[in-house]
């Protein structure tokens, strides 16, 4: 038995939802970052799956997008974590509930 595209899409949807769960329900900024990274990974999984099951192209677009997205995710993680450290230095907390200076 060979798997269909649906299987991969469901897996990626589940991974995305778990990432969303982490991003929404945890109060620690690093958890939110981890959640976002998982959502990105889920998106990458979608790209590669669609490329694998779709019509063949030259260049392999899905793979290329996944590579670029990983690179961008790395940059995002670096800046995000630097922000976490900077925020922690300033407020002595990384709990996002307490970081509401932008309240209107």
């Amino acid at each position, binding site marked *: *038995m*060979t*798997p*269909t*595209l*649906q*299987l*991969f*899409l469901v*897996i990626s*949807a589940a991974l*995305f*939802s*778990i*990432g*969303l*769960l*982490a991003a*929404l*329900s*945890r*109060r*620690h900024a*690093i*958890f939110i*970052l*981890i959640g976002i990274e*998982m959502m990105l*990974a889920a998106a*990458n*999984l979608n790209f*590669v799956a669609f490329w*694998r*099951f779709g*019509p*063949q192209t*030259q*260049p*392999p677009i899905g*793979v290329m997008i*996944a*590579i*670029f997205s*990983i*690179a*961008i*995710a*790395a*940059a995002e*993680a*670096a*800046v995000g*974590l*630097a922000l*976490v*450290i900077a925020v*922690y230095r300033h407020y*002595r907390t990384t*709990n996002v*509930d307490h970081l509401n200076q932008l309240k209107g």
Partner: protein
Amino acid sequence: MSSAAVVIIAILTLAAALAAATLQKLMHATLSFAVALVGVAGLFFLLGAEFVGLVLVFVYIGAVAVLIVFTILLTRRDVGKERAANWGGAFLAVAVFGGLTWAILKTQSVAVVAPHIRLVTVKRIGEALMTSYVWPLQCVGLLLTAALIGALVLVMEEKP
């Protein structure tokens, strides 16, 4: 590519991901996150995108996970003061999952089997990167440089 392998890896991945989202200790959550990403890389291998899988492991385990771990270390005093889980968020996540799954299962056009394709070799990816993707490649290089400098500036000690 057999369904059994996919399902086994998927279960491992999702379990690790769930652990990463729910474990109380931040360090354990990070390590679970790393495991989940190794699982995703495994899925990439099964999908025939070896290079992406390797890059994923390389970047996420080698760099991002280490970064997260360092950040945890630098903000250690804050660990452990976690409030109880936010049920509204959990509910929303489940709703999104439900919606997405429902949509996927309902769409018949995605219920297809993988066609036979030529292996995507590193050489092909390299050629693509150096021809049609040169611009994006340069932009990503610029972005990474900017991110590097930005991150450094952000965490630099403030001189009183």
